[in-house]
């Protein structure tokens, strides 16, 4: 795992915040209480703006932050079809890691937000 990147984004996430009048999605990991809430603005089937807030471990926060970087200007359908491995690649995590659930919480929240209009 790219730990320097993960810790750096954990300490200083670039996409932390809330967008008013947006699509909202939430995901909770009940085993540890981590929760991520994302807000997304989309136009013409494309993600235009996205932010997140919530609490989580370094992997959870960093992977959500990097994911939001990467989905801007992507087609909504493309984002909805992103596999978990996409996140693992973003942070350099091995897919069989015991922490896979930490890494995918943000993606779940993003999909939940986008599904709310489908």
């Amino acid at each position: 795992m790219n730990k320097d990147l993960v810790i750096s984004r954990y300490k200083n996430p670039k996409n932390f915040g809330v967008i008013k009048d947006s699509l909202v999605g939430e995901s909770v990991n009940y085993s540890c209480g981590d929760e991520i809430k994302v807000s997304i603005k989309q136009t013409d089937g494309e993600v235009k703006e996205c932010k997140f807030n919530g609490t989580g471990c370094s992997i959870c926060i960093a992977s959500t932050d990097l994911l939001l970087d990467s989905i801007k200007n992507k087609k909504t359908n493309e984002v909805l079809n992103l596999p978990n491995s996409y996140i693992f690649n973003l942070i350099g995590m091995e897919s069989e890691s015991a922490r896979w659930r930490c890494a995918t919480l943000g993606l779940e929240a993003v999909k939940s937000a986008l599904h709310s209009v489908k």
Partner: protein
Amino acid sequence: MSFDINQIKNQFPLLKGNPDLVYLDSASTTHKPKVVLNAMNDFYISSNANVHRGLYDLSHKADTSWIDAHRKVAQFINALPEEVFFVKNATEGINWFAQTARDQILKEGDVVVITQMEHHSNILPWSAIQQRLDIQLERLMLNKDSRVDLDHLTELFGKYGERIKIISLAHMSNVLGVTNDVKSITKLARKYGAMVLVDGTQSVAHLSVDVKELDCDIFVFSGHKMYGPTGIGVVYGKRNILENLDPVWQGGEMVDNVSENVVFKNLPWKFEAGTPNIAGGIGLAKAAEWLNSIEGRFEYEKELSNYLYLAISKHPSSVKVLSQPSSILSFVMDGVHAHDIASEFNELGICIRSGYHCAQPLHEKLKIKGSARVSLGIYNTKGDVDKFIQGLDQLKRYE
């Protein structure tokens, strides 16, 4: 023989085969000494037959081992052999008693008292009763030492009196490591005729347990946290209580007569329906016998617990320990998630637990989102503690 840590550690094949592994998660499960593994293996190799069924010699041999296993685990907690029966684990034991209580002890308007420190296994079986029977569930608060607050219990008895039928609590907290004053609780319960269940899951391997001295009505524990196998646990019940309870589980070999009148077997067999986990029981009995044979183990664990507590308290980081010195020590660090703590230690070959430890309500009461937990076993050394303390340095970059 005096306590020799190297001699002890060498008896654990997994630790012997992984000399660099630092295992600090014994509150979750312990490793198994060779004598326990051999006892189970020997049963399958030389005595395997079903119990209470056959008239042939091999079956008699299995019977003898099974009866002996009850005697040994009973002896381990100072109970009579007929006062203990085997279950899957402590969780199953608590569920057994909760279901028994729902059908045979409790009535509408009664009160069951648990505590704020309970493991989910001592919360959910009681809250599940509420879906079928209108009972009240009260939670005893903790005092400044993180133990169950006896004044609060007195207050609850003042409020509800004999409506309190059952108090169900942990002997030792799986998060805070503190030991509750069970004797004072049972003494108070006697005045009002309330029954007391003690969850001994975390205590049996670390304290000398005497159920007669505790004067509890029910005591449950798991085998795998006391160097025995998984899938086996024990329920102790006072003889006069067990005698008057009907079994929850019905099936083969727990019954003498199945015709118009059903006649259950004598204690403890009426509570063991179907073919039991024979090898598991034999392994657990061996673990109990083995533990009892080790002189100085309590003193050693106490010294190691103090060593750990002092070292972590002195560490120059934001680490905050949740309670006093104990074989179980949970902590939090400013800005560092418990899972990140456990993952960092994993990279150093050090096994610790993180999260809620199946005690989410306690963490909510403490206003923390999970904690990291170090728990000691009989095989841990000061060297293990030193490596753990050095590992804390790795976490500074998260702060």
